[in-house]
């Protein structure tokens, strides 16, 4: 569904991504691991139109989407969910969710998606009118994911969903990722080595110093010594 070929990207004058090629097939969950600061977020952002200086080829269902802005891409069904969540602090949970459905294609499904999202995250339904700035870390993370779902996305790029969460919440996040995928959404997830999440991966990628250093299935990963180093080192 999403295919990157020899993508280079610069972020704030720094050459972050170097000839990155990867592919996410429709319906898959692909997890990208790697040390911090080596460009994992940039890969997601580049796909979702949030990085200005991108070269190479990014394709979505065969169509070339390299260099398109986030407005177009969200409309096409590609949404980024930031590790900082980037919520709207002075707005309520409900308003944040409504804004998630800003794009034209999502507007028609706003009511339906709102119900779906509340079913998935019942706690958000309870806190509908609460200001986003007053939410706890875990709740804010849920809200960010929920807002992403409101865009009627077919492809979600999720950046470190378990960051800063306690172990029991991590289980919840993993469950939600599985549920979302079960509803037909393709996922590319960037994470630290969180067993609950890497468990779900159809394919694993490792990004080191802006380059793909490993591509394979979980089983391949287990047999790879270099990777073991990274995993243990992290």
């Amino acid at each position, binding site marked *: 569904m999403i295919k990157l070929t020899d993508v280079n990207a610069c972020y704030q004058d720094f050459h972050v991504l170097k000839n990155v090629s990867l592919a996410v097939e429709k319906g898959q969950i692909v997890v990208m691991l790697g040390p911090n600061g080596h460009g994992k977020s940039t890969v997601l952002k580049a796909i*979702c139109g*949030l990085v200005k200086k991108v070269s190479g080829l990014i394709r979505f269902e065969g169509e070339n989407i390299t260099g398109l*802005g*986030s*407005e177009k*891409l*969200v*409309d096409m069904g590609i*949404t*980024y*969910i*930031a590790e*900082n969540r*980037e*919520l*709207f*602090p*002075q*707005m309520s949970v409900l*308003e944040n969710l*409504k*804004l*998630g459905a*800003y*794009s034209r294609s999502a507007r028609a499904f706003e009511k339906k998606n709102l119900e779906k999202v509340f079913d998935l995250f019942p706690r958000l339904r309870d806190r509908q009118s609460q200001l986003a700035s007053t939410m706890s870390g875990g709740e804010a993370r849920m809200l960010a994911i929920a*807002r992403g779902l409101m*865009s009627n996305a077919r492809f979600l790029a999720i950046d470190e969903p378990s960051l800063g969460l306690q172990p029991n919440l991590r289980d919840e996040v993993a469950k939600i990722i599985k549920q979302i995928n079960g509803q037909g959404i393709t996922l590319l997830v960037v994470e630290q080595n969180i067993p609950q999440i890497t468990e779900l991966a159809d394919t694993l990628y490792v990004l080191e110093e802006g380059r793909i250093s490993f591509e394979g299935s979980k089983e391949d990963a287990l047999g790879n010594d270099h990777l073991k180093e990274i995993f243990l080192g992290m």
Partner: protein
Amino acid sequence: MVIEIADVIISGLINGSVYALMAVGLTLIYGVSKAFNFAYGSFYSLGGYIAFLLFGLSFINNYFLVFLLAAPILLVFGFFVEKVLVAPLRKRDDWEIKVMMITLGLALFLDNSFQVIFGSRMKSLPPFLEGGFEGGNFYLSHQDVGIFFLSIGGILLFRWFLNNTRTGMSVRAVAQNPAGAQIVGIPKEFVFAATFAISTVMVGMGGILLAQKYFITPMGGWDILVKAWVITAFGGMGSIRGGLYAAFIVGMLEAFVGWYFGMTWTLIVLFAVLLTTLAVRPQGLLGKWG
């Protein structure tokens, strides 16, 4: 004595309401796009002159029509200015200085164009309401009451827009978190242009409302710019609620100082209050998007 004080309070309220309309416009642009529009005062005069021209047309004979026609003209003008003059500068270094410079150039161009086209003598608009409420020595013109309610109405309309329309919500979103707005797919450039356009309408309307009281002059906008600026900074740049409180406080303060000490002291007192506030709270009264 009581009547005099009542007069002062009412004057303060009325001016405050129009100031509120204009300060909100300025704080809006700053809060959303961090740009400073030096031509804001000229837009105020522009509103007055547009109304003046419209009244010159034979089929225009009431304010309702004038507002109806002036608003879209101002809206389109503001949108156009942002797209052509401000947006291209955003990519450059020191873009805030450059925006100030280009809007200053625009102000120069507009003010002097007004002078050449309309002459430097004051222009006035016909009053929209005649008569007033009387009671002994007390007189409150219908005009002033009308101005007050129209300004308040404008602000309420704006608040409704912000909370209940998609564009309004996108404006708040960009102001609160530009990164988040981008993630959600809100077209930032459009929002920047839209807020600029809206603020142009607000200050232009202010110009039309106050034109009957204070007349229209080519250079009259600078006082307005400074006042709007002081109010915005006082209330906290980017805070709409702060701007509203500040506008009324300033309106009242101005009325009282002008009455008690004389008009020449108003500016000094205003700045003194502003400076002391900023010394204690560098971000203004409610400095944050609110």
